């Protein structure tokens, strides 16, 4: 599903964010990316949804080589990838329903489909009762659920999460992890960058550790835990 071959990313200012990364993630996997701040986790994640372009190497998502993608093809690839952020990135002047519906409306889906998909997805994340609220009226955990719903509503094959629990307390964080696990069990490939090692330990999934732009540990094939 995701294949990185000898990927390096050097920013225009000379910062070497990633060096010779090889990584393969199969369909339906749940993978944690861990490592200290500035190790390159975020850059790696941005390469996956083509917010950044690798300086060298190949990034292949669902058999599409992102390195050979024309700019106007980028939106088509993004429709297969849902992204969840630490800071939610919800639109403050839209309701919960509108925030989730928005992701479909911008793809030109018809009103009926938008409504059905939005309701179904809000139900999945447990927010169907709050769909008329604005983000400011929700707790952090609820806002992150809206964000997950928005990422999922177009039924992407891959869900990418960059520190999704970073701004949440333990209880809310566990709730989000439960949700991501559920989504993964429904067949979506999940890649999550995180600092929260206790969560990684608890989930018992594949862990890829990145340090100074290189992969220093990969527990592929075994549901690993790492010591805190």
């Amino acid at each position: 599903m995701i294949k990185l071959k000898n990927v390096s990313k050097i920013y225009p200012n000379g910062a070497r964010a990633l060096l010779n990364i090889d990584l393969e993630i199969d369909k339906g996997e749940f993978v944690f990316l861990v490592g200290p701040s500035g190790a390159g986790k975020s850059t790696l994640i941005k390469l996956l949804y083509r917010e950044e372009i690798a300086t060298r190497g190949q990034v292949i998502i669902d058999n599409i080589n992102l390195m050979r993608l024309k700019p106007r093809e980028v939106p088509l690839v993004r429709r297969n990838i849902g992204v969840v952020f630490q800071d939610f990135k919800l639109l403050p002047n839209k309701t919960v329903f509108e925030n989730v519906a928005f992701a479909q409306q911008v793809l030109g889906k018809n009103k009926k489909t938008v409504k059905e998909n939005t309701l179904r997805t809000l139900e999945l994340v447990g927010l169907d009762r709050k769909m008329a609220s604005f983000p400011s009226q929700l707790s952090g955990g609820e806002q992150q659920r809206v964000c997950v719903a928005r990422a999922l509503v177009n039924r992407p094959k891959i869900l990418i999460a960059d520190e999704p629990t970073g701004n949440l307390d333990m209880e809310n964080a566990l709730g989000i992890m439960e949700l991501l696990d559920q989504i993964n069990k429904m067949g979506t490939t999940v890649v999550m960058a995180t600092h929260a090692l206790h969560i990684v330990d608890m989930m018992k999934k594949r862990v890829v550790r990145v340090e100074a732009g290189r992969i220093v540990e990969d527990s592929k094939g075994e549901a690993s835990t790492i010591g805190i």
Partner: protein
Amino acid sequence: MAFDSARYILLQALQSLKRNIWLSLASVLTVTISLILLGSAVLFLANTAQVAKTFESQLEIAVFLEKDYSREQLSDLQKQLERMEGVASVVLTTREQAVWQFEETMGSDSLLEDLGGINPFPDKFTITATDATLVEGIANKIMAIEGVSKVRYGQGILEKLINFTHWLRWVGITVVAAFSFASLLLISLSIKTNVNSRAKEIQIMRLVGASNAFIRWPFLIEGLIIGLTGALVAILVVGLGYSWLLQYIVTTLAFIPVVANQQFIINVLLLMLLSGMAMGAVASLLSVRAYLKF
């Protein structure tokens, strides 16, 4: 699906105008002020050009002839003058006509008798040129024609007048150019602020895979609506203001040649409408473009 998209885009544009009402009003006001400046500048240019043209068209060359010419000779000479390059019109005043004119001015009817039957006036041609700058050249050529005794064309004053009208035109053009630039700058700044305030929205649209075209549309329509609204207000102000000014000048300062051509004024107002919409749209597209780089 196309219908749903169009409907969504239009609603989106209107909704964002409404939700960002103060920013929208500020943009509309900017467009209005810019277009009032632009429209006024164009009308100013047209009027300075008109004043310059009127002054220049009043420039004449007076050609005095030496001796008695027969009617046929005068007529031949007139034809020769009319054929000259740059000559717009040639009017003959014969010696006899000159006497009558003089008598009329003096209120006397026995001038010729008083002078002992000798007519002191020569035959005279009054010539106008197609362009003020050609006057001197034409005058020089005429001077070389046999039988011409004197040529008068306001030597000395002519250069000053041409310099003045030249200067007047340049002032007009500079004012229009400066105001066009200023309005474009003002409008793009204002719309840029509008678009920047919604960077997050654009970012999310991109993340969920909206095509660039889809992202651009609502902004384009917003820009058009802002430009159109601002232009309509400006047209009202300039249209009413100019017609009031015309009325004032025609009744109190009648010697100033103003541009009162209806069609021309309508064209200026149309120009304002189109530039308002165009500037709104272009400014929107340019501002959004900054966020659409992949």
